[in-house]
């Protein structure tokens, strides 16, 4: 058996304007799990894409099974035994499990796919590794955890000795994630090596044998779970000490600000996504909506912010009905919205930072006068936002597209928070941004709460929900499973509710 299954040696990769990988070395030995830890933009994906043959390094070498290789594409990597489970599953939804597994390496007779042979191989494989699956099910009918299993089987079918998993737990409930970690551990017993890419510290400590931490395209630390802990890892990732838990005082809930009653909302395909939701958010409290993505969160937020019309039910803000109000009607009531998709709904990328800083009120005094924008006032306002919300930018005249994700998010938060707000609706407010910016935004959200705003926080990151919320509502399949007080909620309990299980 090889000494080194997979390794990068002094790999450097330059993209226009970014040195994505700078002299990176890391190696994986048989039967071990290597965790690549780093924030978004640290260079994890680039490194993995190089190891999988999607990109070619500018300099440095890729080693597979003790041999220096020159990969020309994913098929090169696959044929050498590298299997990859992508963050966004690479499965064809209307095709069967067995078809998805054998696609690209189909057993065939005279050009026709030998499905019987394919099915028996898949069944044999799933029994050998204890990964049970129905080979004839359509992938689109499977829950996310099962789809991931198909991805793993796909790699094993190609006789992978190395599995690379890119952020594999992002779409799973905590229990599913724990189960996956167990499966991976068992797989290593057969001599398989695993590269596990994540930004979740807890998982790294739970599963990794070796940890490599990346920051700004460089290796900034190599360690093992025995030698470190969460704050140690976080410090390596960010480059300074960070507060993982925001300090917060007890909530002082006052009057009901948002009251939602029997709300029903359809998704884009016309299926019922929000199914009879009723809840209230009071001034001075944070209500966190937990749940695996795709359980109605998006539709709920869009309905509450006026971007999508509900089928039935009512919504009131400070006692006034806003059920079929437009986004502007609702925003006029003092509602701030941090949208889930900042590129699509948060900023207009081609507009300047200054213009983006007044998107929610350019039409009002003092930013416009009789229909004409007052550039000087807008610019002054933008300077204030940049200053106060620590938006890192060369100038307020640059297009929003030139900002990093974290800075875009700070710009949006700055824009939304610069008025007096009664209700804050924050959807995935820290998705894909660096820990420093996360910490900053978390503090600002709590600041709004303490100033008396009602906060509706929707997040797929359970840690974020647990850290910020005063009450936690768990959404599953468009319904509220339960609403818990923060002190009664822990990962275990919320996780089960997220999977639709009530004891």
């Amino acid at each position, binding site marked *: 058996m090889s000494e080194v299954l997979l390794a990068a040696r002094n790999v450097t990769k330059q993209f226009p304007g970014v040195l994505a990988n700078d002299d990176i070395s890391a190696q994986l030995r048989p039967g071990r799990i290597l965790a690549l830890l780093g924030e978004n933009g640290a260079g994890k994906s680039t490194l993995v894409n190089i190891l999988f043959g999607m990109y070619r390094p500018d300099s440095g070498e890729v080693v597979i099974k003790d041999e220096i290789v020159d990969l020309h594409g994913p098929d090169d990597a696959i044929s050498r035994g590298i299997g990859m489970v992508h963050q966004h599953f*690479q*499965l064809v939804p209307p095709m069967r499990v067995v078809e998805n597994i054998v*696609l690209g390496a189909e057993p065939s007779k005279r050009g026709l796919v030998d499905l019987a042979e394919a099915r028996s191989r898949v069944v044999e494989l799933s029994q050998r590794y204890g990964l049970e699956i129905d080979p004839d099910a359509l992938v689109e009918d499977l829950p996310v955890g099962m789809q991931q299993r198909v991805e793993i089987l796909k790699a094993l079918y190609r006789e992978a000795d190395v599995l690379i998993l890119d952020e594999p737990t992002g779409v799973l409930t905590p229990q599913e994630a724990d189960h996956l970690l167990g499966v991976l551990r068992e797989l290593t017993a057969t001599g398989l090596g695993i590269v596990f890419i994540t930004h979740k510290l807890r998982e790294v400590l739970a599963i990794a044998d070796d940890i490599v931490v990346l920051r700004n395209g460089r290796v900034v630390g190599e360690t093992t779970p025995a030698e470190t802990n969460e704050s140690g890892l976080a410090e390596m990732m960010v480059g300074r000490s960070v507060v993982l838990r925001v300090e917060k005082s007890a909530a002082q809930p006052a009057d009901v600000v948002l009251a939602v009653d029997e709300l029903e909302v359809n998704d884009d395909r016309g299926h019922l996504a929000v199914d009879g939701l009723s809840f209230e958010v009071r001034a001075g409290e944070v209500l966190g909506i937990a749940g695996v993505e795709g359980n109605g969160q998006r539709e709920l937020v869009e309905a509450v912010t006026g971007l999508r019309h509900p089928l039935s039910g009512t919504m009131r803000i400070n006692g006034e009905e806003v059920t079929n109000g437009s986004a502007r009607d609702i925003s006029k009531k003092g509602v701030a919205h941090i949208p889930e998709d900042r590129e699509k709904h948060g900023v207009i990328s081609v507009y300047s930072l200054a213009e983006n800083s007044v998107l929610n009120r350019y039409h009002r005094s003092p930013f416009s006068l009789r229909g004409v924008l007052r550039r000087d006032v807008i610019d002054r306002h933008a300077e204030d936002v940049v200053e106060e919300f620590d938006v890192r930018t060369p100038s307020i005249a640059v297009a929003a597209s030139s900002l990093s994700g974290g800075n875009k998010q700070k710009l949006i938060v700055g824009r939304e928070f610069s008025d007096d707000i009664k209700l804050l609706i924050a959807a995935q407010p820290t998705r894909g941004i660096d820990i420093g910016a996360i910490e900053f935004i978390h503090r600002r959200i709590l600041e709004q709460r303490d100033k008396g705003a009602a906060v509706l926080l929707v997040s797929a990151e359970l840690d974020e929900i647990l850290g910020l919320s005063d009450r936690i509502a768990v959404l599953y399949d468009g319904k509220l499973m339960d609403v818990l007080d923060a002190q009664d909620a822990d990962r275990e309990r919320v996780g089960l509710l997220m999977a639709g299980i009530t004891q």
Partner: protein
Amino acid sequence: MTARQKQLLYVGAALLVVMSWTFYAADGPQTTAVLAGTVRAATLLALGAMCGMIGERSGVVNIGIEGQFLLSAFAAFTIASMTGSLFLGTVAGIGMGLIMGWMLAAMAVGLKVDQIIAGTVLNIAALGLTSFFYDRSRSLGMGKYTNIDLGPLAEIPLVGTVFFSRPPLTYLTMVLLVVVHIALFRSVWGMRTRAIGEHPGAADTVGIDVLKLRYFNVTIAGGLAGLGGSYLALEAVGTFSRAMSGGRGFLALAVMIFGRRTPFGAYAAALFFGFTTALQNQFQLNNTFDIPPQFVGMLPFVVTIIVVALSGLIGSMRDPAALGQVYEKG
């Protein structure tokens, strides 16, 4: 297809058979003419629909079928009249279809031009080129393809005349329906083709070259439309005339959608649309209705609109997920 839809289909087919026999008993020659006309019109539509479905199953919309028909018909007619060989004319038509398929692929897949615009380019180019080079004095001295009786099968009353006493390209089309069906749903090529139309990224990560396969498929599909053009000029009509494809390339797309992008589904739909065409011809010949012929001539198109609108209601029909999208690697 759900059990209920299948039931409906069987009931419809049974009804059709009963009706045909009743009409046949009442007026034999008339019924035979309409049904023969149905098959004649359906052949062209089926070829166009197969061209369209191979493209769409791979994620490429082809609205240039109309142009592919027209220019191929022109090529087939010109070569046949020059060489005096229907066979060489047919080959030329198929060749021209392949060239136009390749042009569509070069634009839509290679250069990543918007697929609708690329198809429109073909249509306009075909109309312009054929109008410009059209030579009125040419003709097929040897006449068009003639019927071949398939032995005793041709002796069966009604069915024999309608299906088993046809010219060669009609038979070829029926064979191609089976071939394309097996290729799309049983072969390695078909599985990969369906994958790149649904989720090209997934295909790419298992080492399938998405752009190469799309290029190949759109080109090959062009050959089917080219055969359609040959059929139009050398078998259905026997000459070339300006804009002779007359919107049937677009009708083929409706047929493809109604047939759920399957060859047999498309042929059933093609027979249905062909029937409306044949019926309207017969109405015009007999002067059945005392209204301007243009209105009777609208029949197939009105039916198209109604059927396509209805088909959305009857059952959910999902387009391939990556239809019309440019695939960018990485």
